[in-house]
């Protein structure tokens, strides 16, 4: 099963590109011209998102470098202990919603300390594999729109994240 899945993952991009190109030629689309037209558009978008990325990166950097994250971790520790979450995972649970690369490094550190096949190591892996960077996604996606009121997008994301975290810990107990 994992073999088929990893084959699919590896073949996805090349396959998709082939389908797009062959279909385009078959339908007599001037594919090179269309590619250039679209690429120009894409570059514009990437310039447009730079200010939002700057804002997000600054805020995350401020929280992690100042030790505010560590403070938050200490204050929430009793709560996490009560619901049966190992303390090694607290920092990961708090960091994952804001930073994808940061939380991957953190998961690596957790596994270096506890071992990749320990309970905390496996739970950390599953968490990184299944929980998304919800705050980052909210900030970046709404950043390109005129939206000021996120409405239930916020709550849906948080609820999904909490469910993902709990499921990661619980599933590692039974699987």
């Amino acid at each position, binding site marked *: 099963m994992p073999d088929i899945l990893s084959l*699919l*993952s590896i073949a996805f991009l090349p396959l998709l590109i082939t389908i*797009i190109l062959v*279909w*385009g030629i078959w*339908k007599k689309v001037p594919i090179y011209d*269309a590619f250039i*037209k*679209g*690429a120009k*558009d*894409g570059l514009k978008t990437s*310039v447009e*998102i*730079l200010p939002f990325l*700057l*804002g997000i990166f*600054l*805020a995350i*950097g*401020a*929280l992690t*470098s*100042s*030790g*505010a994250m560590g403070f938050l971790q200490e204050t929430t520790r009793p709560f996490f202990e009560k619901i049966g979450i190992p303390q090694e995972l607290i920092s990961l649970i708090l960091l994952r919603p804001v930073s*994808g690369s940061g939380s991957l490094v953190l*998961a*690596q550190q957790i*596994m270096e300390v506890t071992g*990749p*096949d320990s309970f905390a190591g496996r739970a950390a*892996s*599953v968490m*990184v*594999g*299944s*929980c998304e960077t*919800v*705050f980052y*996604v909210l*900030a970046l*996606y709404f950043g390109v729109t005129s*939206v*000021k*009121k*996120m*409405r*239930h*997008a*916020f709550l*849906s*994301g948080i*609820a*999904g*994240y909490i*469910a*993902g975290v709990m499921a*990661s810990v619980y*599933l590692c107990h039974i699987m």
Partner: protein
Amino acid sequence: MMNYIWGFMLIAGIVVSLATGRADAFTDSFLASCTDAVEFTLSLAGVMAVWSGLMKIAEESGLIDHAAKALRPILTFLFPKEKDSQTLAMMIMSFMANIFGAGNSATVFSLKAMERLDAENGHSPRASNAMCMFLALSMSMIQLIPITVIKVRSDLGSASPDDIILPSIAAGLISMAVSVWICKLFERKSPDA
């Protein structure tokens, strides 16, 4: 909302760094973050341009319309009011890229989809139901092979680096179900204006 969260994160960082005597660490990270953001944008710019180019081909050849039509049954449940096949296609592509672990490409499609949804929403400051659902799905989308984690695990000498795949997918599905459920719940309570 964003104004408060952003302000809080920065001010909390400054206050704590001053209180713990790590103001220099804060300043270093502040400057490093600027560089990081620009470098990340640059690395994204290439992927973004390439995918936008390829998607333009797919759009002009009608491939996008076909894909959107094929997935209509699932999409009408999630996005009952969404009729534009371009927008639907961008959302599908974003989900697919996410599932297959092409994160940067997924970001590209998502941002395109959000731009289109924003236009359909009349650039209103109030998020549409379709936007909320798209966000809810994006924030909980599963990934078939969390390849980077598996790599880290095998580098650290795990006996079975990939035995986290199935729990990851299961946890991801649970997270997705909760996200969509909450989203639908709110949708019923407050329909689009």
